[in-house]
């Protein structure tokens, strides 16, 4: 199928993103939506997600600074963030979000703060990986 090394590379990278648990089935749903009318649909959606999630992350950060912690609000923000992340198939990010919400329910400030760092970390890691992936895919497409 892959006719050139770049394409093979892209396919390999894509496979590993799934295997390593960074992405789940929902990402495939996005890929299926990509067509000639929207040839860069997946990348557009991911870009939109990262733009919008910055806002959500900011909200959570601010909420984490208030004392005492408003767990309900935190949970609320995280619910939104989780929903958004799951819509692009960000599996690891979503899992960390779940953890965060559990700490909210348990009203554990320390748990929330710690888990949130993990959420942000996964969020950033995924972005870098996807950026690389899209760049590679574009090159492979051009080279095609």
């Amino acid at each position, binding site marked *: 199928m892959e006719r050139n090394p770049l394409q093979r590379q892209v396919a390999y990278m894509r496979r590993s993103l799934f295997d390593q648990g960074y992405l789940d089935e929902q990402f495939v*749903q996005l890929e*299926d*939506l990509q067509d000639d009318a929207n040839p860069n649909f997946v990348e557009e959606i991911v870009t939109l997600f990262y733009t*919008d999630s910055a806002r959500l992350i900011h909200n959570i950060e601010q909420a984490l600074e208030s004392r005492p912690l408003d767990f309900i609000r935190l949970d*609320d923000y995280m619910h939104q963030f989780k*929903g958004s992340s799951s819509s692009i198939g960000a599996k690891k990010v979503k899992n960390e979000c779940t953890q965060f919400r559990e700490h909210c329910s348990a009203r554990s400030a320390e748990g929330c703060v710690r888990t949130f760092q993990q959420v942000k970390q996964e969020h950033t890691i995924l972005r870098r990986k996807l950026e690389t992936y899209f760049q590679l895919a574009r090159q492979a497409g051009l080279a095609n």
Partner: protein
Amino acid sequence: MNLGSGQGSMSTASSSGAWKAGDVVPDQFPAGLRVLVVDDDPTCLMILEKMLRTCLYEVTKCNRAETALSLLRGNKSGFDIVISDVHMPDMDGFKLLEHIGLEMDLPVIMMSADDGKHVVMKGVTHGACDYLIKPVRIEALKNIWQHVVRKRKNEWKDLEQSGSVEDGDRQQKPSEDVDYSSSANEGNWKNSKRRKDEEDDAEERDDTSTLKKPRVVWSVELHQQFVAAVNQLGIDKAVPKKILELMNVPGLTRENVASHLQKYRLYLRRLSGVSQHQNGLNNSFMGPQEATFGSISSLNGLDLQTLAVAGQLPAQSLATLQAAGLGRSTGKSGLPMPLVDQRNLFSFEAPKFRYGEGQQQQQQLSNSSKQMNLLHGIPTTMEPKQLATLRHSAQSFGSINMQVNAHGNDSSSLLMQMAQPHSRAQILNETTGNHVSRIASSMGQPVLSNGIAGGLLTRNVIVENGRGAGFNPVSQGPSVVEFPMNHTAELPGNSFPLGTNPGISSIQSKGLLEEVSSEIKGSRGFVPSYDIFNELHQPKSQDWELQNVGLTFNASQHANSIPGNLGSEHGNTHNISQHLNTLVDSSSRVKTEKILDPCCEITPFPEHYVQEDLMSALLKQQEGIGPVEGEFDFDGYSMDNIPV
């Protein structure tokens, strides 16, 4: 978020047109299904839009509930189905669901990342036709058309079984009409459906001329009879067969009554607070609400008047209703209600001035709602449905109340007769002082206070979003209805600046008189003003506040018309409400409630009112100002009177 107006849904006009002709739908279906998707998450929204487009649906996206509602109201038959997120910043998804159900009667699918049983259950109880867990997959969206077909099918079945008493009216309406039950859509569907189920539709064929299915048109009078019968029997014992017997209307079938009763109950339920009694709404609702209802019923009588005044109800109907209401109310709650309501009024209104207005509006709405209830079938006690209706009406009341007040003259007299109303009126004037009373007083106080108060009171409660609150002049009454207060609060802005516009009141009173006599048809004149309001209101701020601005402005203009608005359901009422709406500027386009949110809905488009019946009229009134959507779910309320 772009409404995506241009994209799919805006072309609905053409597509729907195509459907109407029935020449395209059957084959294309479900392609072309007009979907409105609402979600505050831009990522999800874009994904959903793409998925729906892939399913060949026509998609309009919205990132705010308010925007969605105004879109729906502005284009009553422009959508076939709505998909909404549960969690949204400006309005709770379930609340939006209720509005849509009441105003437009479209199938609504809820979505959420939350898959907890409690939330899903909430969706069920609020009337969602489906619940999707996020992330949504395209497979889940491929079959959403089934909900549209199912709904249409059920409606068709009703029609077929019940035949139609006055289906002529409905049929005549162009499919564009926005009957509160989205008959337009149905109409389209009907065509397609017709093709699909010939045998079923054979009888309905005669209304092929209009896509609308032949259905009983529940005119104000008819509804009043219905409500009277229900009240007489007692909401608990009101079974279709007995109601039918009591009503003794030739051509009306048990099925007609049954489906109407169901809607009525739902309406009441909603008014009184859907959340409370999701499950055995009708019954459970009745229980706790009984007291409230009782009072409401007394108010109902008033409401009738108010409604009647609003122009919706012809004077005689009003009298009938009142009698019924009175008869009932006495049985049920007797007069005590007004007192109770008064108290509530005060309590509700006191806290917030602005709300007061809203409340007043609400009250008015409640009044109107009450009236509506009365119309609905003067349930002996404000059944949950009533409450629901009230709520809606309350909202619309805002506008309606105004109107009602206007009519108040007439109604007031009627009200006066009703002992309760009278006191209420006073109370209203005093308590509501804010707006309602003003309105009432100016308008035709007697009417307002009584009817409105009653209606409002009850309605207030119902005015969920307080949108209607504006009109709840009934503040007095509302005690019964707990909601109104809440709702009215929201209205504050919109609800009724009326009160504050002394000028208006005077005008209104005048208008009332005029309206009253002419059944508020006169409100037509105000139409233009409403438009202004509508525009003002348009900003979806359901809050009446925004509207208030408009109102003041309009109020002066419409002062006269206000009275008409109250009777959203009644054509006349529409006028009044329209006026009121303008005044109220009720952003509350809460049309659904039909009670006509005083504020917004008073869109001066009387034409909408023509819809179906009182209920719709009332609802329409609210919308009257704007795209009058026959919000009331009640089918077939032909608000012919609603002059536009």
